[in-house]
């Protein structure tokens, strides 16, 4: 499928097939979870916890993704990157991050989030540690890792920079470790 048809598919899904909630409810709910975690744990631990929560969401969310999109297996990791940005992010968050910074071997790329609905109204705490240690939107990394694992793609997903920390852009990095060929369900060809 071309990237144009991905766009029209995701527009259709966004308009007609997904339930939406008020974005402030969403942002504030996520904010209060992160704030509570920050009270309970160190920032490093908060990152881990958020990633874990995201991972568990991803394992489940992937089924809805397939139920609503009807997509089949991607033909390449390039294809996967397009689907993540143009369909995945679009249908769940109504944003379309830019895919860029491909590594030479085609196994790593970055997603630039121009707009991040999780971080409306957010300012990190004044103490220096927060700006150096906390990845506020780390839940997204977990979600992606969980989803990709369910389609037998073993990936590392992490934030490289975040405008919340004062960086110029918000950048997520995806690194494909391995395509788990042996775990592909039988019957797929």
């Amino acid at each position: 499928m071309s990237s144009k048809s991905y766009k029209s598919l995701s527009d259709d899904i966004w308009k007609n097939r997904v339930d939406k909630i008020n974005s402030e409810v969403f942002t504030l709910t996520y904010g209060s979870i992160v704030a509570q975690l920050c009270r309970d744990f160190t920032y490093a631990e908060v990152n881990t916890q958020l990633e874990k929560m995201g991972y568990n969401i991803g394992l489940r969310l992937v089924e809805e993704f397939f139920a609503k999109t009807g997509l089949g297996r991607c033909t390449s990791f390039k294809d996967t990157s397009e689907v993540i940005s143009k369909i995945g992010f679009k249908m769940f968050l109504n944003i379309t991050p830019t895919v860029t910074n491909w590594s030479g071997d085609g196994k790593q790329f970055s997603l630039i989030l121009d707009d991040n609905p999780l971080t409306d109204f957010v300012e990190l705490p004044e103490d220096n540690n927060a700006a150096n240690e906390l990845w506020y939107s780390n839940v997204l990394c977990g979600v992606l890792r969980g989803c990709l694992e369910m389609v037998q793609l073993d990936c590392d997903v992490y934030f490289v920079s975040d405008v919340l920390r004062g960086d110029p852009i918000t950048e997520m990095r995806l690194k494909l470790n391995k395509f788990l060929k042996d775990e592909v369900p039988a019957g797929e060809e």
Partner: protein
Amino acid sequence: MIMIYSLYILNRAGGLIYQKDFNKGLKKITTNDYLILSGILHGVHAIASNISPPSAIPSTIYNNPSFTNTNKSGLKSIETDFFKMFIFQSLTGIKFVLITSNNPISKEPENINTSNPDSFSSSDISINRNINETESILRKIYALYSDYVMKNPFYSLEMPIRCDLFDLKLTDLIKSFSQP
């Protein structure tokens, strides 16, 4: 109009995680036998995918845009005089097994077949038509599964499905299909 007798859902390892009959007259077997049955189906499906010749595997037979059946080379259907069984598989490896009545639609081309030497292809067509019909049902079942099972925070993955809401919605869905 086909009648839906039962639905089985199998996890990635071939374990039965859901079984429901939608028709009162059906004979029950013991829980253990249901488990054995689904284990056998899972195994036969995998073996079939290993022995099917590459040339026989269709690249895209069913291009229903809203449900991707990734079951291309495995066991797809079983047809008997009394029922039909269809096996669908999601990209994540969950199998949905649907047991339906022997659709009267399939009788028509078969009757024509007696005078038609090319009988093989027309019975293929009839089974494909059934697959398309069941696929549209499956699409809705899969959507219910992704909503009422996967989004239930207290459901543990790969474990038997005990979600009342899913049961309820599923029964409604099947009812809507069996009433013309």
